[in-house]
């Protein structure tokens, strides 16, 4: 039996979308909701990600036993889909649109600015676990390009100069910008 996963307090302003408190009993409950056959794999994975915020190794181990599919095979299936993640989500999620309209209006420069300020590449979380930086193909509001979302909230007509103001409330200061 694994010890319960260390949990973290939700942030006060209620912007947190992904960080959850969960323990092994939550995993077991989530897994038990799905019938024990191969067809349950994807819905069960979605359920686990909803429960834990990501696909934790201990969660996949429980699921593997329940469905009689090896963890290795489950991992193979899950990595096929971009909807699943395998690392603990950060407190905040920033999605930077790289769709056609956003690209034309400088979305790639916005992404580069975020990468530089956060000292991460798109798809990674900052070392302090504060921010996840994601690139997305289209957020469906091309008229507002370039757009980003911060914890689900859309910020329109972005530009590199607006990046520090976006990051400041998340605890990232301009001085920490990589040199």
């Amino acid at each position, binding site marked *: 039996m694994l010890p319960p996963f260390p949990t973290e307090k939700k942030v006060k302003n209620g912007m947190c979308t992904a960080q959850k408190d969960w323990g092994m009993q939550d995993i077991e409950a989530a897994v038990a909701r799905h019938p024990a056959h191969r067809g349950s794999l994807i819905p069960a994975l979605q359920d686990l990600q909803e429960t834990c915020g990501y696909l934790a190794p201990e969660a996949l181990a429980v699921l593997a036993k329940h469905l009689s599919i*090896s963890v290795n*095979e489950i*991992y*193979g299936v899950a990595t096929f889909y971009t909807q699943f993640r395998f690392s603990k989500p950060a407190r905040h999620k920033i999605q930077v649109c790289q769709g056609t309209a956003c690209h034309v209006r400088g979305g790639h420069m916005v992404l580069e600015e975020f990468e530089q300020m956060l000292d991460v590449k798109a798809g990674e979380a900052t070392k302090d676990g504060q921010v996840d930086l994601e690139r997305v193909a289209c957020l469906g509001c091309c008229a507002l390009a370039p757009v980003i979302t911060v914890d689900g909230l859309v910020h329109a007509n972005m530009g590199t100069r607006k990046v520090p103001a976006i990051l400041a409330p998340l605890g990232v200061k301009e001085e920490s910008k990589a040199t």
Partner: protein
Amino acid sequence: MKLSINGIEVVAQSGDTVLDAATRKGLSIQHLCTHKALKPFGACRMCLVEIDGMRGYPPSCTTPAAEGMVVRTNTEALRKLQRNILGLTMLEHPSACLVCGKRARCEEYRSKPEKAGRTTGCHTCNNMKHCSVRTMTEDVGLERLPVPPLYHERPLERSNPFIDRDLNLCILCGLCVRICKKHQGEGVIDFVQRGSHTHIGEAFGHTLKEAGCTFCGSCVDACPTGTLSDRFAKWYGNPDHVSATTCAFCGEGCAVLTDSVEGKLLALHSAESFPICVVGRFAAAELLNSAERFLVPKIRVGKNLREVTRDAAVAAVAEQLGNYRGSSFAFVCDTFSTLEDRRVFEQFTREVMQSPNFVQVTVDAKGAGQATLPEGVKAAVLTGALLSPEALRGLDYVVLIDFLPSAVLEVAHAVFPASVFAEVSGSFSDGSGTFRPLRRISDAPGQSLPDWQTVGLWAEAMGAPQLTFAASEEITAQLAIETQARVARNEAPAPSQDITKCPATFRGHALATFVPGLREFDPDAPKAVQVVASTSEDGPFRILSKEEIVPNTFKLVIHAPAVAKRAKAGQFCIAMADETSERVPYTLCDWDAEAGTITLVVLEKGQSSRKLILLPEGGRLAHVTGPLGIPFEVKNYGRVALAGGCYGVGAVGPVARALRAAGNHVTVAVEARSHYLTYLSKQLADASDEFIQTTIDGSTGFKGHAVDAIEANLKAGGHYDLVVAIGCPFMMMLVSELTKPLNIPTQVSLNPIMLDGTGMCGACRVTVGDSVKFACVDGPFFDAHLVDWEEVRDRRQAYSHEEVQSVGLSAPVTVIEKPVDQHHCVAH
């Protein structure tokens, strides 16, 4: 039912696919993802056919044969499709050698694959001789690639015991994934990620061992490329014999097929529908090929066991044992000995020694068992580590017939080397009491003999010729037993795949002592270490930077002020990664006298270069000596062409710069197999008047070899007063062949095996014209037209067996960093 394939009438059985029906008739259809033990998959699309009345090109592996079908497999349209499909399949596989114009010459000059870390071409691929992909490119006539190949730069995975995995060679056929699922139920490996990132892997980036692999080797056997390989056997070449025998390491008695080459056992494979265990598949061959095998008889003289002739050893044992006839003698063996051996042992004990003390240890499922000696025994014969030295210490005389060292050596008075398992023929009694045949497949090392023969020699010397036999079959006849090979099991119970239940002992020896890969499964066993990197702060020869500039080729900057201070263009140094590594010469590719640094370009090729490139930044080499050799004679020749290939590319720079400074017009032509293998291009372009980058597959620059580029320049009316070639012997030989009929003076930098580098040992001898030269003090540059290239090749291969043995240990290839004893750090 009957169908027509290419106009030939073929009779198919119910349930046959079109591919089955064709194969049954002996008609070949290309296929990659079909495997006899697996259900059709239909992934590779190589087996497409045309069938009348069916739309498009159905895959023959998934299309059921039907009455009256008219099938064509050899139309031009199909061949074109196959070429395209295979061309796309090969895009992520190092494919330059397959489309190389000099392939036939190259494979004639180097008939065996050469060792490497990451493989970037066929001639450094362990799978070269039995590669189905390679054969297929020939069959479908794939001569060029549709677009430049993509190399994924994946690290070579060698942190597992027994198995190397180089995913850069993988074509994603999926055979390993499917065979694993079939044989192990829940698969250990699967496709991970998608699109161009798809690769074979385990959950969360675990190693095979962490993912629960039982090391049955099914995936290695199924892999059509060199991606998955048996670390021990991979460089020994293609098996020349496949023989059927019984695995004799436990009572299971699995029917196996053995691979052997030139009398050397390489691997065991299951002859049944189930995989065998790790001990059978991997460990058995490594055990028999252990470098620690006994080779010659020995007799104790004082404190030491001294090598003697077999006759002398037999005479000594016969004389001594003659003093212990009766119950003061005991013969101790275990049930790993063949029935024939045991019959001779028993007869020797009872008839020759007139003793009742024939002790047979019955071993348990893991192969272990301990004997106890009857009271009053003063002399004993042992066929393994079956008694502790304490139990034997009170004895007057101990004779050991064995194949590997153990604590018994401390007390033994005579030792005879024994042939074991696949080196003997005879009968083996399995757990159910059925007699199984053992066949002699491989040659025992040195003067080893089957045990019955050794004991027969003693008996003869003691006046009992009745125990002398010409062959083990004569003893089998006396035993009056019949052996039967196990009928291949197609139904459970399959042999255990639980590593904790596999045999761990053979003739009293812990297998893990001699098969380092097995230590990985015992948390308490000391792990085998292939490299110990010294990282102490003080001392010279620190690696200041290390970079894998292109796959398998590393640039090392080493702190070696004494070398840097005196270095001149064309000179080399000799470097040793640790105290036991070879002394390998490396050309000085750059140096900085002020900073006291030298730069080497190192190709991972064998154990010593592997050790060197595994050293971490900040780690220290045991030794660097140099500069050695005669510097290149720098003067104004006029127009000079420099050709560089492989690791030689790094060595071209200093010579080019020096020649240009002396007023020459310098052309530099360097070759690489493909675009992802080019390096130092910018520096060499700056150091030359004309720079030509060639690639063998034409993916960038001039298509062809460096020699082709020089030839093209000559044909276009260019002329050279001197040509210099630095690279592998094959490449330098080609340059020499081009310039010899044209009488263009040509210098080559020879790279034979060296030891001291000062002209003492003679290891680096080369024949140049009528004279014998030492490359270390007379070279490295010689007149190419006078070099005996066959001799250069043969002398470089002189220790290939030892080299293969040293890289072929099954333990993971890992580095342990530790500060070393300062006594060893004194500058030489």
